[in-house]
């Protein structure tokens, strides 16, 4: 009897917990975001969530989200929102591509906006209801790399990734080539350590351990693409600076302007994904959504360099960095190399 009572209470609690989700659909348009990192990770998840909120406010949409979901739950979570009748699924990451394509085939009336999806992903969608929102990963790497090249004193810089995604590899490559170019122009040489991957975007402790190991190898400027893992790395860098009594090891944050979050942050690479999401929402409203890749670049204002830490970055470096960013905008950086979105 006791077992039956416990089972009934548990079942009742489960049903009660599902009621809000089942009744959450609003009368207007609704967008649902899925994310494998937390929206309060101080990095990727936070920036992507804020971008959705900003765009939704401008367009008058309702928002829903599920964060910290496991890889095995990508598809199920997307389908759950589709069953609730949302208008658009917003999946911020290349890792959701397979789940998005599968769900898009089963739900032809729902729009799927895949941030950092491949340029060819929309073509793979059977119903033409998938769009890629693609911030230029090479330019992202450049923005961080130029600052790293200017600021490194040891000549060794580091990069921490979450997963080995195409966009992560492109950021790593851009970071390295920009740092090498800028350093050489300023009479220095730079060694970029091999990329390391935590395997997920939640393991802040792994970020801490990676950063300690990379500092042991002489790295003095860090950039990452790993959400909460980056937060752990910044903690390790702050601890090392505190032990040394001065800030000599730096971090470049992304994708939001995180100046002030940690002492070691000297600047940020900022990606304003809200512009791309807003374009997607408007396309849904006028019925033109799908089958295209919306690029985010320095030129169209989606990408930018965040504010620099003026206490740490010398004035001449600030000026030089601003000049390099302008070269990137003008398309003359590194002799006018064409980027993937051009």
């Amino acid at each position, binding site marked *: 009897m006791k077992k039956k009572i416990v089972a009934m209470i548990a079942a009742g609690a489960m049903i009660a917990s599902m009621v809000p989700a089942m009744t959450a659909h609003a009368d207007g348009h609704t967008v649902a975001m899925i994310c494998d990192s937390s929206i309060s990770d101080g990095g990727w998840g*936070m920036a992507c969530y804020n971008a959705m909120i900003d765009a939704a406010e401008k367009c008058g949409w309702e928002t829903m989200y599920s964060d910290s979901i496991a890889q095995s739950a990508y598809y199920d979570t997307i389908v759950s929102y589709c069953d609730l009748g949302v208008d658009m699924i917003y999946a911020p990451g290349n890792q959701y591509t397979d789940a998005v394509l599968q769900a898009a085939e089963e739900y032809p009336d729902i729009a799927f906006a895949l941030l950092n999806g491949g340029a060819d992903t929309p073509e793979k969608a059977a119903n033409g209801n998938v769009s890629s929102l693609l911030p230029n990963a090479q330019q992202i790497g450049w923005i961080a790399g130029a600052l790293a090249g200017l600021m490194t004193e040891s000549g060794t810089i580091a990069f921490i990734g979450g997963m080995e995604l195409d966009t992560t590899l492109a950021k790593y490559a851009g970071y390295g080539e920009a740092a090498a170019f800028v350093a050489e122009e300023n009479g220095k040489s730079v060694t970029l350590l*091999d990329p390391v991957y935590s395997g997920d975007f939640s*393991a802040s*402790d792994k970020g*801490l351990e990676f950063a*300690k190991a990379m500092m042991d190898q002489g790295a003095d400027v860090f950039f990452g693409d790993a959400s909460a893992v980056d937060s752990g790395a910044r903690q390790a860098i702050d601890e090392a600076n505190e032990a040394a009594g001065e800030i000599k090891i730096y971090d470049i944050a992304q994708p939001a302007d995180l100046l002030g979050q940690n002492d070691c942050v000297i600047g940020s690479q900022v990606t304003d994904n809200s512009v791309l999401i807003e374009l997607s929402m408007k396309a849904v409203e006028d019925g033109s959504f799908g089958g295209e890749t919306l690029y985010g670049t320095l030129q169209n204002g989606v990408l930018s360099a965040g504010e620099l830490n003026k206490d740490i970055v010398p004035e001449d470096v600030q000026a030089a960095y601003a000049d390099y960013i302008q070269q990137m905008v003008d398309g003359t950086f590194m002799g006018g190399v064409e980027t993937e979105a051009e």
Partner: protein
Amino acid sequence: MGSFITNLILASIRMASPLIFLSLAELYSQRAGLVNIGIEGIAAIGSLTGFMVSLISGNPLLGVLAGALAGILVNMIFAYATITLCAEQIVYGMAINIFAPALAAFAYRVYFGSGSELVQANLMVTLKGLLGIKSDNFLVNLFLDQTPMVYFAYILVIVTAIYFRRTKSGLNYKAVGEYPKAAATIGINVIGVKYLSCVICGALAGIGGAYLTTCYSKTYVDGNVAGRGFIALAAVIFGRWSSGGVLIACLFFGFCDALQIRLQLINNTLPYQFFQMIPYVATIVVLALIGAKKAGPKASGQPYRKEER
């Protein structure tokens, strides 16, 4: 090479410390005949509670205590279901693993709202910091650059070894896990010991979780226990159900994890996934080698019914 090894040792100690608490939690549970696979979930609750209390009070030690209390409370569900209702231990352990992390995520959202700001709490100060020592010597870092919780973990290993081997109470405790009916006939309160084991297990698992957010990382992220609760299960088997063995197992797993991080850095030919496999492959290999000869409590996993003949 020298700094590679010394830093590897320091990282191994850091990464082994939370595992020691979680493994001892499982050891105390299994020694009373309760296989609790819900350590992962209990640690998740302990991690969040420790973080929130540390953040609010500004005192990480209070966070650890709150983590222990939260761990006990959650583990009482397991205790009631498996001891009083004689329900299947594996099923309820799994239920804790599903329920507790979800409860932690829910509590975090309720308290902090759906805001996206990164919240960071203060960490417990190391002995080196407390004493104001500036030296970067390896031995100083190894023995002094640790939080009080690390010393507590090692003291707990010694106390546990003495308790189970040298005290009457410890032998009675072990008897409950070996042959509860015989233990009951000599006047041991089997149900009481089993409940006590759940209190100890919950407290230590909660402390293990709280360690992550009060001594290791300044932030709380859903999923930050990251499988350590399951590694703890393996560590107890690897350690042959003794506290000394458990300590060696935890240090071994900590070493493997620290090693894979460093090997990623010095190797650019093999895929990084290969190195990430190391702790798990090591677990499988070690369990295959060690697990062949059973040395665990005889009544482990079996419900105890007073009236049953």
